[in-house]
Structures are given as C-alpha cells and as structure tokens.
C-alpha cells in the first residue's frame, strides 16, 4: 500500500488528552535537575551524584522537618501553646496511640525509629500537596528503600531478642506436622520478603495515583479553555470542583498513608519481638 499511513505516535500527538497525559507522566517521572537531555541511566553513572527533582523536594521536606521540631522545642513550657502544642500532640500521638497501642507499654522503646518513619513520610506527603513541589515518597526508589530499612530493623530486633536459631524456628508454628514444616517455612519466608515490597508499593502508588488524578482534571480544565465548545461549560466547573475535592482527599491520604506505614512498622516489630511465643 502506498497511501500515507499515520503511525500510533503521530495519532497520539494529535489528540490533546493523550498528549497532556504523556506530558503529565513525564513531569512526574524522575528527572535530573540539570541536563534534562541526559537519560536517567547516563546521569546515574557510578560515583556521579545527580540531584533529581524528587531528591530535591525530599531534601526540602527533610529540612522542614528539622526546622519544625527545632523551632517547636526551642522553649519548652509546662502549658503548651502554638507550634509547641502541635509538635507535642504529634509526638504524643505516635508514642501513645501508635507504638503503645500496638506493642503495649514496651513499645515506647521503639518510638524513636517509628517516629522517624512517621514524620519523614508525613512531611514528604504533605509537601507534595503544595503545587510546584513533588512528594519525595512519590518515587519507588525512596519507598522501596524505606521498606528495606524497616525489613532490616524488624528482623534485627527479632534476631537480637530471640537469637538467630529461635527466630528462624519461629517461622514454623509449634505443633506443625513434620512433612508440612518445609512448606510452611517457605510460605512464611515469602510473606516476610513481600513485606518491604508491599510497604514500598503502597506508599508510592498512593502518592503517584493522587497526583495523576489531580493532573488529569487539570488537563480537562486546560482542554476546556483551549477548545471552547458547549461541553466546556459543563467540564470546566465540574473539573474545578473535583480539583478542590481531590485536593482535600489528598491531604487526608497523605496523613493516612504516613499512619499506615508507621503502624505496619510497629506491627512487624511487634511480631518479631514475640516471635518465639507462638
């Protein structure tokens, strides 16, 4: 056939919605701050550090966390007020209704680690809701790394408390028939190795999906303004309302995901502590 054929890519470029979504996905991907023409593989050669858009905002969230707690704890008062009150309420929430609720009174010993996880994730998630900023937790690299840190810590605590032999033995519940033991052991091993992966994917996908949703409604608004037609008068106000509703929902999800990440960390540590009891 000699008729001019239109390739898939050309068709996609002509459609404003597809074009917009492709641009959105590109904006949300990990890009080096300098030299955007370089692929991510080239800019990550060994011994070569590149600040990406996500790491940049993660460092800012990190600085804000430190700043918040330093400013808050500068003048401790018996009767808390203002920013000190806010910080104290947050810390008391993590210590009492997160650590102590899951692990009992001894859970307060693990508050420093769980508190670090909680506030890191919380500040990153919340910062991602301010328009030019990206959530540091919106990329798989960060969240998988946190999953691995949690994995290492809870296994380390389990081995330290129970001893290596007893900790591994605890993967098989007492009273299991001998022929079933290898299967149970392998299943338990798989479930343990899935934990960091699900921790990472849950946080990443929540943050990423939220930003995609917001972006899609923003694209709808852009198209409605650019190509004015009868439908514009329906799409434009509807998208605007959805933007506000979704933004509120995103704020809720940001806090909820930090809570879930921290509480699952507490549950895993609790499981490792009491491994040899059942």
């Amino acid at each position, binding site marked *: 056939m000699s008729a001019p054929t239109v390739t898939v890519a050309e068709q996609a470029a002509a459609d404003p919605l597809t074009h917009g979504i492709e641009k959105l996905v590109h904006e949300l991907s990990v890009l080096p701050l300098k030299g955007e023409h370089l692929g991510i593989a080239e800019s990550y050669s060994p011994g070569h550090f590149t600040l990406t858009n996500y790491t940049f905002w993660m460092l800012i969230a990190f600085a804000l966390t430190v700043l918040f707690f330093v400013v808050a704890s500068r003048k401790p008062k018996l009767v808390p007020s203002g920013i000190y009150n806010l910080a104290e309420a947050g810390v008391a929430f993590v210590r009492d*209704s997160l650590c102590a*609720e899951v692990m009992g009174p001894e859970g307060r010993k693990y508050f420093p680690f769980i508190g670090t996880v909680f506030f890191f994730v919380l500040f990153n998630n919340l910062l991602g809701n301010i328009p030019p900023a990206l959530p540091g937790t919106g990329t798989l690299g960060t969240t998988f790394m946190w999953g691995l840190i949690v994995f290492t810590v809870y296994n380390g605590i389990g081995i330290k408390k129970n001893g290596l032999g007893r900790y591994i033995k605890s993967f098989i519940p007492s009273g299991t028939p001998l022929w079933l033991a290898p299967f149970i052991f392998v299943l338990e091993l798989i479930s343990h190795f899935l934990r960091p992966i699900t921790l990472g*994917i*849950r946080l990443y*996908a929540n943050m990423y*999906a939220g930003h995609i949703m917001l972006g899609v409604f923003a694209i709808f608004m852009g198209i409605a303004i650019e190509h004015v037609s009868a439908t514009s008068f329906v799409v434009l106000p509807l998208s605007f309302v959805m933007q506000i509703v979704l933004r509120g929902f995103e704020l809720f999800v940001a806090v909820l995901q930090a809570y879930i990440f921290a509480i699952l960390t507490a*549950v895993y540590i609790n499981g490792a502590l009491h491994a040899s009891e059942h």
Partner: protein
Amino acid sequence: MHDQEEEVVIGSLSVLGAGLAFGLGGIGAALGIGMIGSKTIESMARQPEMAGRLQTTMFIALGMTEAIGLLGFVLAFVLQGVK
C-alpha cells in the same frame, strides 16, 4: 507494513491488559475494604468502648488490602510500557 500492524496490535492489547489489570484488581480490593469498613462499624456499634483498638486494627487490615489493589495499578503502568 506487517511489522507496523503487529506493533499496533501489541500496543493496543497491552493497553487493554493494563485496563483489565487495574479494573479487576480494584474489584477485589474494593470488596475487601468495604467488608473491613462495615464490620468495623458493626463492632463499634456493639462495643463502643473498644472503638480505639478496633480502629487501629482496621487501619492495619486496610493497609494490607489496599496494597493488593495497588499492585494492579503498578502492573497497569508496567503493561503500558510494553511496545
């Protein structure tokens, strides 16, 4: 020409697969989250003094269920990259 047709077929099938992965994955997770919510409300109504501990357990279960649904979401993005 033949190669191009093949590319189009594979591309459209991967998009279809991505949609199915997210959609079907979402059904299971949605049912699970609905059950968790309804049972928690039921239990809270029966024993309001247990509400705090029930809520904690609910969030743990919610997080675990949600992860399964989100695996479909990630898989959808992986499938879309298939060319």
